[in-house]
């Protein structure tokens, strides 16, 4: 059976070469906002940036084989692959206190126009390539053309149980506008209670299977965003410039997140300073059985 029956199997897998060390370097060029979540997939480095290219409103799957992302090794089915360890470090002080999340970027609906006040219907001809039932899948709107901010929007979706017509809580667009900003993230203020990286789903929902439409409210705005479907896998933080931060997900979190075959992996980050020109260098280690 796929997975690890016990600790001995983990050690055996590493001895048998079922283990990968993969390095990465992401280096944002934008001046990011303190306390505002930012999508590092759009930043230069290794792997190459993701630009959310696609037809407006059409779901585009993201895969390692076609789009890159952080390397995690090839397909292992019928075995199962896990994230074992992460290490991150930076030598730029302004970026040295930064929580990060590793996500499986499942796919996105591109170029949603913030100036269109009519309901914008989305195309789901292409299904989700992974996590197809939507369990744990979250909605992450990413700025691809800057906005002014302050205007509300909602998303209508089908939840993890297949129930359609679900609606996110109305949130306001951030006033932080550089490309890669997560549109719903803002560091506080009474009008921005929903400051996290993911859109608040309707009460009771834990995931998203597909998105049917987006509705921009207020007077609209001038920007564009990509609506990304992601599965959060793991968290890690940059703490200081003098030492790397490491997490062993078996020993320190008692869970090793599953990495699906052909997953497109990348990070989001919430700097307390700025990520501008800060190289974030690290290692991602996976094992499978």
């Amino acid at each position: 059976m796929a997975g690890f029956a016990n600790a001995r199997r983990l050690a055996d897998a590493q001895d048998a070469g079922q283990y990968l060390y993969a390095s990465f370097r992401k280096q944002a060029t934008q001046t990011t906002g303190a306390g505002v979540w930012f999508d590092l997939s759009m930043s230069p480095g290794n792997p190459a940036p993701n630009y959310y290219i696609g037809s407006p409103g059409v779901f585009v799957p993201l895969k390692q084989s076609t789009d890159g992302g952080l390397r995690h090794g090839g397909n292992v089915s019928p075995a199962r692959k896990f994230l074992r360890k992460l290490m991150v470090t930076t030598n730029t002080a302004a970026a040295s206190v930064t929580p990060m999340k590793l996500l499986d970027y499942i796919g996105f609906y591109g170029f949603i126009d913030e100036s269109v006040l009519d309901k914008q219907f989305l195309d789901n001809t292409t299904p989700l390539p992974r996590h197809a039932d939507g369990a744990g899948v979250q909605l992450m709107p990413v700025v691809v053309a800057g906005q002014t901010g302050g205007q509300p929007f909602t998303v209508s979706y089908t939840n993890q149980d297949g129930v359609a017509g679900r609606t996110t809580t109305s949130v306001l667009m951030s006033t932080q506008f550089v490309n890669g900003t997560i549109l719903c993230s803002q560091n506080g203020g009474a009008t921005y209670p929903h400051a996290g990286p993911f859109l608040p789903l309707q009460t009771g929902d834990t995931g998203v299977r597909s998105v049917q439409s987006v509705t921009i409210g207020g007077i609209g705005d001038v920007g564009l965003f990509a609506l990304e479907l992601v599965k959060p896998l793991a968290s890690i933080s940059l703490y200081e410039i003098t030492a790397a931060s490491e997490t062993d997900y078996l020993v320190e979190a008692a869970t090793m997140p599953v990495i699906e075959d052909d997953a497109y992996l990348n990070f989001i980050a919430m700097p307390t300073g700025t990520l501008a020109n800060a190289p974030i260098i690290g290692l991602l280690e996976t094992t499978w059985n």
Partner: protein
Amino acid sequence: MSGFASTDDLINQVSTNGNHFRVDWQKSTFATTAHTAGLWYSLFRGGGNPGADTILGTGTNLAFQALTDATTNATGIRHGGDVGGGTGYKHILSAAAQTAAATTAPCVLMLVDLLGFYPITTVTTTGDQALDNTVTLPRYTDGAGVQAFVTPSTVMGAGTPNIRLTYTDSGGTAGNLTPTTLPIGNTAAAVTSIVYSGTGNGKFGPFMPLAAGDSGIRSVQQFNLSATYTSGVLNLVLCKPLLTLPITTLGVTAERDLVNQFMSMPRVYDGACLAWLMLAGAATPVASPLSGHLEFGWS
């Protein structure tokens, strides 16, 4: 026997059987309540993901209402649903939280399972008020480890009443009283604050003190204010504390491994309504965001 039989079994359940759930949460302090250092607050009514509750303060005065993860308008943090109709064992394996909001750190977060509440609109009534326990605890039914706190859903008026409970403890003994010195409510206590928390005499937090020898509350029979609170709506909330998570520094993630670091693996029952309490370590502006994640595993 339910639960993890060994570390090997934990690895097997999480990796082979997929018995794992991760939730990424984000909550802000209440939109109109700035936090005072040294006071405890509930983040249940703060906006975010999940959104703010709108259930506290509703329902029949003095009557207990149970809370679950499926209760309308109760917005607990998701934990992966039921695992085996009450016979499965779900545990919290790790937790993390951080904030980048100015002056929000340091603070201490406490995760609780909200079991239910008694809304109290008769806040000008002094002396014992009988509570209605037609509805009973939905989880921890014997009251083991169950604690109580008092928080407004409408801002309180002028008054600094002593607060006393008459309750049945987790051993089934009725008529127990909150011991003296009684907690003293804060005047004009803000929505989401725990009204008797603070740093002076008669201040406790976050929970009402129990009689000597008691470790839990099965039900509360009487609620007593020694003086009028003038106006407002209180809620006497029963909960089970699960873990604490101190945030030390702005931007620095607080992390807890509850298997290897702080071996406790708090159990989360089917239907649990999870929420954070927060001890403010600094004057914290309204709507200050905190975020983090919880990871669960089950057998």
